[in-house]
């Protein structure tokens, strides 16, 4: 975009375009008929174009119908009318004021008008009621597969750095309304680098072993004993028992669920370098009605018995 901001280009393009169109008209007019010089003895009615190759090879005139010529002139008229109505002549916006961005907005508006009522119907329902609605579930699944599966996986079980949404462990809380807030506003989880605060590498390793001991995972008990007093630095966020704090998104360290991995090395890395993780806000992108259906779907993933992703459902929405 920034390449052609100079005022020179708009008149340059305009002049070039109009000259080309005018030139097409002139060419057409000039080629409509031709004055030929008759050779001595040549019949004026022999119907050749006067174009001669190789001394004696004439071109027979095989004229097109005249309406064909008028079609050519019509294209010129069309081009001029188009350039008056639509953007095309340099930076001239055209009489109709058409813009691709407003065309896009108009389509969005139409889609909202078409599908809005369906989503609005659920917006006025309690999230748990929406979660129990088979049609809302199907819509939620499609929304999830389109907008969420890139990070959280098609089965919602997450990846390294992206939480599993099908279990009961929640960083910011698993109540339906909290899930909705998470999707609406997004989340920003920060674990600061704690290496320096704890001391040296040895201290980090000891704390890591203590952290592992909280969930009863395999660890070095001696190192864990040395790590325990150092863990006070962590309690501000993770709590005295390491059970975490959903208000600030501090993970529970006393279960066996790890966002980045549960090996000693990974935990040491987390402590040393910290972590910074973002869940984007979908408020503006999807709008509240869609987020409402989506939140109900996500909540249902961990609050229905059996399979996390229900393969069967009673109604079909797609065609």
């Amino acid at each position, binding site marked *: 975009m920034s390449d052609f901001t100079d005022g020179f280009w708009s008149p340059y393009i305009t002049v070039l375009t109009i000259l080309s169109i005018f030139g097409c008209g002139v060419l057409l007019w000039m080629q409509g008929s031709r004055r030929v010089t008759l050779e001595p003895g040549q019949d004026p009615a022999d119907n050749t174009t006067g174009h001669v190759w190789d001394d004696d090879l004439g071109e027979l005139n095989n004229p097109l119908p005249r309406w064909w010529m008028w079609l050519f002139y019509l294209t010129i008229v069309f081009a001029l009318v188009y350039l008056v109505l639509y953007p095309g002549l340099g930076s001239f916006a055209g009489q109709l004021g058409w813009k691709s961005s407003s065309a896009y907005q108009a389509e969005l508006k139409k889609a909202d008008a078409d599908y809005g009522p369906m989503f609005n119907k659920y917006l006025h329902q309690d999230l748990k009621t929406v979660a129990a609605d088979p049609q809302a579930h199907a819509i939620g699944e499609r929304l999830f597969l389109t907008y969420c599966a890139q990070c959280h996986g*098609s089965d919602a079980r997450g990846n390294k750095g992206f939480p599993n949404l099908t279990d009961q462990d929640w960083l910011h809380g698993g109540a339906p309304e909290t899930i909705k807030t998470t999707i609406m506003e997004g989340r920003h989880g920060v674990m600061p680098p704690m290496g320096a605060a704890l001391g040296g590498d040895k201290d980090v390793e000891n704390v890591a072993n203590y952290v592992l001991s909280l969930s009863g995972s395999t660890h070095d008990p001696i190192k864990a004993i040395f790590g325990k007093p150092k863990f006070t630095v962590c309690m501000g966020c993770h709590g005295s028992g390491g059970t975490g704090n959903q208000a600030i998104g501090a993970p529970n360290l006393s279960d066996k669920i790890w966002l980045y991995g549960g090996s000693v090395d990974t935990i040491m890395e987390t402590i040393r370098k910290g972590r910074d993780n973002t869940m984007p806000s979908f408020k503006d992108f999807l709008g509240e009605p869609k987020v409402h259906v989506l939140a109900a779907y996500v909540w249902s993933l961990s609050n229905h018995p059996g399979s996390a992703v229900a393969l069967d459902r009673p109604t079909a929405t797609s065609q």
Partner: protein
Amino acid sequence: MSASESSPKTAVVRMYQARQQIYPRDVSGRYATLRWACVWLTQLVFYGMPWLRWNGRQAVLFDLAARKFYLFGIVLWPQDFIYLAVLLIICAFSLFLFTAIAGRVWCGYACPQTVYTKIFLWIESRIEGPRSSRMRLDRQAWSLDKLLRKSGKHLAWGVVALWTGFTFVGYFTSIHDLAREASVLGLGSWEWFWVLFYGFATYGNAGWMREQVCKYMCPYARFQSAMFDRDSLIVTYDAARGEPRSNSFRKTPEPASSPCIDCSMCVQVCPTGIDIRAGLQYMCIGCAACVDACNMVMDKIGARRGLIRYSTEHAIEENLPAAAILRRIFRPRVLIYSSALLVIVSVFLGSLILRVPLKVDVIRDRGSMGREVEDGMVENVYRLQAINADEMPHRYRISVAGIDGVALSGESEITLAATETRLIPVRVRVPHGQGRPGSNSISFRLQELDGARAQVNEKAVFYIPR
């Protein structure tokens, strides 16, 4: 140059010319009857087909909005587009074959341009009268009679054209709904557009453009020479018998070799306005109207028929009998076209009959390569895009194979409603130690549990982290 030539004469050559209106004379005879039979046949199919029902729906419907194409018992999806490509190839090869054998039979008998021109000409001659009356009417100054006849003609053309446009749209949207909407003029804007557009195209092409479409627009007229040879059937004038012409109208003493009497009937009946006696030309659409006209004249003067007839260049030059023309059908060009056509048609029908009304695409989750779960098992996640292309709901079992111990985690049976498309997230697990680190080939299978037990296998990749 001498002084007398110093000012050379010049002339103006026009590169465009006004069209000469053609007034084809009505003709009857064997080929005219055949042509009318083709008009009836093609138009009964065209106008009638959308009204046929099949299992409670329109039998032939190209539902573009839902992207489903119903052809009697078959429902085709965009994924089946290959069938359209093959169908077009079959049409092209048929055209090549027919052209090699019998020249432009398509143009003369079945092409919509010919057929609608014929229908519109029929209306014209009912309202404006035969050729001579039409010519006189066009020369006349405007009068009430002329106004009534002309407007009546255009009105009748308009009705046929609108009905044609309506029928055309009826192939793409339910014609019953369309008829109901049309009866109260409540068509949607796109329906209006296409009805009027197709109607206008019919009116313009069959009423006004006529032979100009064949002469100036149709590519087939221009490349047919690549498919013709000296043994292809053409409508041709027997110059050896006809020339020199003699315009004596008395009964000829030698009916077998009587020459052309230059009555110009062959020119008057020609819908493209050419003189067939000038030889084979690209403007000839092979309708054989001139054959009927000439035969009629030959009958009247007691001469033998066939001065203008279906023959081949070869047969005309060497005076071959009909049996020799028939024998020459079996020449390499025709045999190659026929065998190619036979192969393509068999493959087409075979694959259409064996077609499984179930489609599966596997889309691997790209967010994660592979993750370790309980007991050191490796898990990969996929989405199966399953399409039940049948018009009945079905139950399916999903299974996976390719690595020892590979299995689905979670439910493996699904139900798809009639013509439903669904994305199904599935997790696949492989026990610790099985498979190679890196990519492993696996395949998913969807097996229908009821009905025809259709099944589809689809390849995928299972990734085991190193």
